[in-house]
């Protein structure tokens, strides 16, 4: 039982990080039909911004802020202006190809211009163990869980309680109608890209102390985000959160109780099952499909 609680909490922590990534992923899809195949690399990159800032002598807290700011500019603003905007008129596929190329570009750039080696990344809190219901839980997991929940909660409040947030939701649901109602649709779309940049930067800072910062990190993280988004429902922020948490918990439990070799396979099997039985996802609405 103790080990179960342990696994559950570390699973929740990983799942919360997946949820952050998946939420950004769904937001981009909703507002601009962008399927970002580079989302995993987007999570990999900010950690290197932080490390670069620390190499320049910045203390960790400042470096983290610089990392988030750099992510806002590069992964939010520039990504939208340079990669997405020129491509939208061609439809979904060219943009998919372009983001696949972008993921390659980011990965290789980090490898060639920073380092091919895994880099140690400072943790948010000193590592210690906490005893909880007889289980030993690391403070890391608890902090990750706390920060991720706080971020998602803040995002949720912002989306539902502020005028801007509600305008963003309107844009996501029906851009044409939103425009008629006087919502500056283009600016709202830009906001989603910025929100996504902040989410991936936070995820990056949370996950890098655990996985180390490495240029290949994005591969698994990106897939996890896709799967979480699809399991939960591509068109629902709540769905992405649920999907992320299910995925994280399941990943940890199946590795411990079923087979660690096939750890990577269980999420994929669930993905295939969900797509076949409930393509709109657990919480998703049925979208009009072009057959």
């Amino acid at each position: 039982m103790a080990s179960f609680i342990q696994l559950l909490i570390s699973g929740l922590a990983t799942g919360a990080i997946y949820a952050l990534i998946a939420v950004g992923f769904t937001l981009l899809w909703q507002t601009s039909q962008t399927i970002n195949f580079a989302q995993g690399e987007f999570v990999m990159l900010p950690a290197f911004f932080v490390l670069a800032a620390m190499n320049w002598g910045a203390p960790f807290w400042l470096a983290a802020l610089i990392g988030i700011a750099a992510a806002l500019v590069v992964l939010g603003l520039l990504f939208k202006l340079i990669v997405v905007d020129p491509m939208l008129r061609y439809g979904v596929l060219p943009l998919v190809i372009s983001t696949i190329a972008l993921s390659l570009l980011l990965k290789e750039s980090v490898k060639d211009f920073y380092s091919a080696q895994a880099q140690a990344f400072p943790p948010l809190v000193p590592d210690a163990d906490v005893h909880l219901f007889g289980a030993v839980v690391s403070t890391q997991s608890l902090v990750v869980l706390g920060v991720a929940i706080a971020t998602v909660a803040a995002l949720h409040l912002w989306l539902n309680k502020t005028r801007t947030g509600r305008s963003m939701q309107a844009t996501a649901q029906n851009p044409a109608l939103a425009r008629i109602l006087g919502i500056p649709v283009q600016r709202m779309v830009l906001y989603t890209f910025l929100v996504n940049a902040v989410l991936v930067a936070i995820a990056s800072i949370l996950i890098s102390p655990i996985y180390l910062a490495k240029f290949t990190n994005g591969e698994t993280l990106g897939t996890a985000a896709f799967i979480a988004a699809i399991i939960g429902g591509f068109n629902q922020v709540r769905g992405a959160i649920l999907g992320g948490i299910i995925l994280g918990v399941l990943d940890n439990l199946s590795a411990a109780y079923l087979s660690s070799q096939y750890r990577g396979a269980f999420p994929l099997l669930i993905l295939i099952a969900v797509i076949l039985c409930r393509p709109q996802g657990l919480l998703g609405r049925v979208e009009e499909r072009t057959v």
Partner: protein
Amino acid sequence: MTRLGAVVIGVALALALAAPFFLKPFGIYLLSMWAVLTIAAMGLNLTLGYAGQVSLAQGAFVGIGAYTVALLTQGGVPFALAFIAAGLLCFIVGWMLGYPALRVSHHYLAFVTLAFTTLVFLVLRNEQWLTGGIYGINGIMRPVLFGWSTGKALHFYFFSLGVLVVLALAIWWMLRSPWGRAFVALRENPIRAASVGLDTRRYTLMAFAVGSSLGGLSGALYAPLVQFIEPGSFAINMSFSLLLMVIVGGSGYFFGPFVGALVAVLLPEWMRIAEGYYLIVYAALVMVMMAFCPTGILGLVDRLAKAAMPNGRSAPAIGAERTAP
């Protein structure tokens, strides 16, 4: 097909036949790799370019084909049989993978096939008793056909080129047949295709299965060409790069994969000066191309040819068989 097209194809074939005599063994190896990967890209072009299904599983089929041939030939089965078995196995698996393709479309299909690729990779890596796990399979023999050994690089190149030409002719014929027209109809307007009485179900499965079996046949040549296979070669990166080949060459153009594979295989060599940075340059080029000309190199040639002859006389560029409006 126009006379110009025929001339271009003839010159290209003559070049492909003459080139290896002027190249070092490594150059011949690269050309063979081009021929082998073109087969896989041609299969993907069938699924993506003609039937309009985004598949990220082609690399996995190359892997299945490669392992089938490696294991069977090491077990004493003649190469010809193993080659056919690789194609058949991938046809069947592709057919089964086609079922999800019937239920979902667009990006969902991309994810299902991506999941499939990862599953295949996991099986290849974990089932050590069969596949040798991460150590892969070593010392795969090049086949001897009718007493003719393809052990030498030059011989194996001609063998691969021969297979490529035969398969290309078969696909050419198929695309001219009602099947091929049905594939294009599926891509252009599935509802209309169904309304004029096409069994869209069967043709989608068929497009998937034939495309996959070409992937398997490509793998069946890949294994003896490289002579060493390991699971990592067939992970998602292989599927991505095959997809990029089809897109860069021009998806939906018959000769798109030929051009795309040539770029993908030769670019690293041309860009020796750029050393490790060539992937960065390649990725950047793909992104620029997507922004300005999403129809690929042949799409660009097509466009330039049309611009050069504005008087309505269509002079389609080589293989400009794209039936898009």
